[in-house]
């Protein structure tokens, strides 16, 4: 067995540490070492997007990143989108208002992707939304109510 390494990551604003094997994916590190099970694994080969998190503010797949690679970085997961763990952010609320989910399994990845999109492009067109979410697979919704959720969130954020 390879020597374990200590990894410290700022997750949702808090410094978190664990000692892990190098082969431990960031997704498994979040889920199993830090008990943040909101990030989900659907394929473990970088295609379904359910595992998407923000690393230093940039959206990427956590199943093909190893925890040791992000030592010292800042990570945002779905659990970090609500200001206090109870109040829904405008984006989260929009997903509920438009029923942009059903089983919820792809939802964390969708929310992270939408968060990254709206930060950069506060008024995306439908085509731009579909482009940005093109790497996040959903088998429940057919995507349409997800698109509507992001559109509603964009409108609400613009009104603020």
């Amino acid at each position: 067995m390879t020597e374990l390494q200590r990894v410290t990551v700022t997750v949702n604003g808090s410094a978190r540490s664990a000692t892990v094997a190098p082969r431990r994916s960031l997704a498994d590190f979040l889920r199993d070492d830090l008990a943040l099970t909101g990030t989900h694994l659907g394929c473990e080969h970088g295609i379904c997007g359910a595992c998407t998190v923000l690393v230093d503010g940039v959206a990427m797949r956590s199943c093909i990143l190893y925890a040791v690679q992000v030592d010292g970085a800042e990570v945002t997961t779905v659990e970090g989108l609500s200001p206090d763990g109870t109040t829904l952010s405008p984006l989260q609320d929009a997903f509920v208002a438009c029923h942009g989910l059903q089983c919820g399994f792809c939802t964390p990845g969708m929310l992270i992707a939408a968060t990254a999109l709206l930060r950069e492009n506060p008024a995306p067109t439908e085509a731009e939304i579909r482009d940005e979410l093109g790497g996040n697979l959903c088998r429940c919704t057919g995507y349409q109510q997800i698109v509507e959720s992001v559109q509603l969130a964009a409108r609400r954020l613009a009104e603020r």
Partner: protein
Amino acid sequence: MTVTESPPGARTHRFVGKKRRPVEDRRFVLGQGRYAADVTLPHLHHVAVVTSPYAHARILNIDASEALALPGVLGVVTGRELRSECQPLRQYIDIPEIAWFPLAGEAALYAGEWVAAVVATDRALAEDAAELVRVDYEELPVVLDPERAMEADSPTVHARHPSNVVYQRTFRWGEVERDFAAAPHRLAARYRWHRSSTVPIETFSVVAAWNAGTNLLDVWASIQMPQFPEQLAQSLGIPPNAVRVHFDVDVGGSYGVKRGIKHSVLTAYLSRRFGVPVKFIEDRLEHMRGSDMHGPDRIFDVEVAFDDDGVVRSMKMRTLDDEGAYPGRSPLQMGKPVGAIVGPYTIGSVQYEAIAVVTNKTGQVAVRGFGQAPTNFALELTMDRVAAAVGIDRFELRRRNFIPPDAFPYVIPSGTPYDSGDYAVVLEKATRCAGLDELLRWRDEARAQGRVAGIGVASCLEPGGGNAIFEALFNPKNESTTFPEGCQVKIDRTGAVSAQIGVASSGQGHETLVSTMLGEEFGIEPDAIRVIHADSLAGLPSQSPVASRMAIVLGDAAIGAAHKLKAKMLRIAAHRLGVAPEDCVWDGDAVRRAGAGGAAVSWAELARIAHVAYHLLPPGMEPGLQAQFVQQVQGGGTLPTAEGVVRMYPCQSFSAHVVAVEIDRGTGKVSFHSYALAHDCGTVINPDIVRGMVLGGIAHGIGAALYERFVYDEHGQLLTQTFADYMLPTTHEVPHVEMIEHETPSPLTTLGQKGVGEGGYMTTPAAVASAINDALAPFGTRIAHVPATPVELLELLA
């Protein structure tokens, strides 16, 4: 945006049919969903499986010594041990010679079949150990083609079942030969529905914890399966009351396939064997290759007899289904469509032959629609051919064949009464929603420019209610006629309402369904009603959320329990008011004496009295306010006749899709110009949930029609094991969909609600194929299979 158009005179509801945020959504957007993979226990161990690299091979020897030497490995179990300690998994057709277990026995029967299981302290380590297990195989001949499998000299899949045909029966309903002889025209066609599945983003996951102190097995699983606790118990050789399945697990999508009985029996066995809780999360490769979760794999031969006007008088349909190595429940997917075998049409007689064969491939499982999608596909493409044969348009052809609205309840030749329907109106709404005239102009202009464009139509039944009497239809030894769903409703001493349901949900919004219907019945805010998922020992009979049955059966169970409580509360109020119960009425959420004015007893007061003021109760009344109601599937309860006349699902939802596509002349790629439909699932309980189900089903249908296929090579190796090769539609492949909702209530349910869970998927593949064929028509060619790939389409256009 969905426009709902209710029939005139429809009851106006306070909550039902109104926009309401599904209660489940909140926890999911917070990342607080609790899936089986999220469940953790002390001393939890993990499973990895050793799989067969060969499609058919005798297992000569398994040497696990190197694997067992790895620190952290608790044990390795082989098929020999498991098969001697457990009972076989249930197979519904009569094939006692075929034993299905979680691990292979004397031979591996498909590439990817599980041969041994490793238990270790973590999954990565278990995989390391699995690689060290040495298995000696002797390859055997392989059969992969279903028609080949039927031949007398085909290699045999199961040593003890000398033929690969595991089911074959021909049904005849009505005067088929007479109707064929009398009709002036006939045509025949063959269709191929290639193997795909609904492939959820969450793979099957199960945690099993055997407690030696209480002799109780606790199970958390991403499950969607009738009789799961019972079958788990049966295989483990323990009584069902020694198994507690926790249904308060969120399931990450199932659409039929999460029947992980073999994963669960394996994991439970390992837990009992090694005395630790065990978790098995199948990985994506295990799911695609070895979970026995593939969908129908069919060849259809259809012949219809029709008259000069295109009215179809009779139909002969033969369907051959490739079950893979272990049939399980899957052949019954040829049985369910018997309950809607003529679709929405007045076809007067039917001959139906269903054949199931085994091959050296992954096993099949129930998939969204339970066989209705491929059957609808074959029927709808045939109707398109009839239209072409008589030279009328496909919309008119359907109108001529539709069961008229005044004919309901309409008993089809195979025995099922259709409850209600308004097919012509729904088709008209679909064409209006699609802007058909405009679409025709678009198509014709595109064609004039040399482009390949087409419009498709499909009008399909989407049966709901889940009367699984096809179990008896296909095997008289299955004598079940009870397909119930229970709901327990409680009102506590403060008047707060909660309900228990006996299912795990995979995104269908059952908590929202039940709380909305209870809120409507009680006259109180649905958001104040809590719905929880009980475990399997709570005493709620259930057949799980399959077959678009929950709104129908669970909904009425909830209403039934509510009625019991309301009746009791009325009697308490009457006693309190000193009047007879018949003189009291519900007024919102209070009970008052009927007539002008008068005192009322409030909801809160009634609850208080029931729980704590025994002295104020009618004499002899049981204290408290809790009631359970078990709803039998409406119209169910009779066995099929010897001829196979059977009353199947109670409620027939219906949708008509109008689709416009363009095929790139140079690449064969299909893109959607528009997608519109009108949908009728009776009374809508929650518009956003209904819309979501339909849109999701359409996306699944687009996958089946254009992208998804399990492809095997000539050695039986699955080539499409990853998401790089098995193509799930993304935001780019699923178009924007316009939808109109129509409501033709069912007379069989309390609110007129029908089912919608499988909606969309049962119609879309037919609609897309119809559009492709319309696009190909000027080239004198057509498709008769799905998925239709760019390679195939380019060849047809050449």
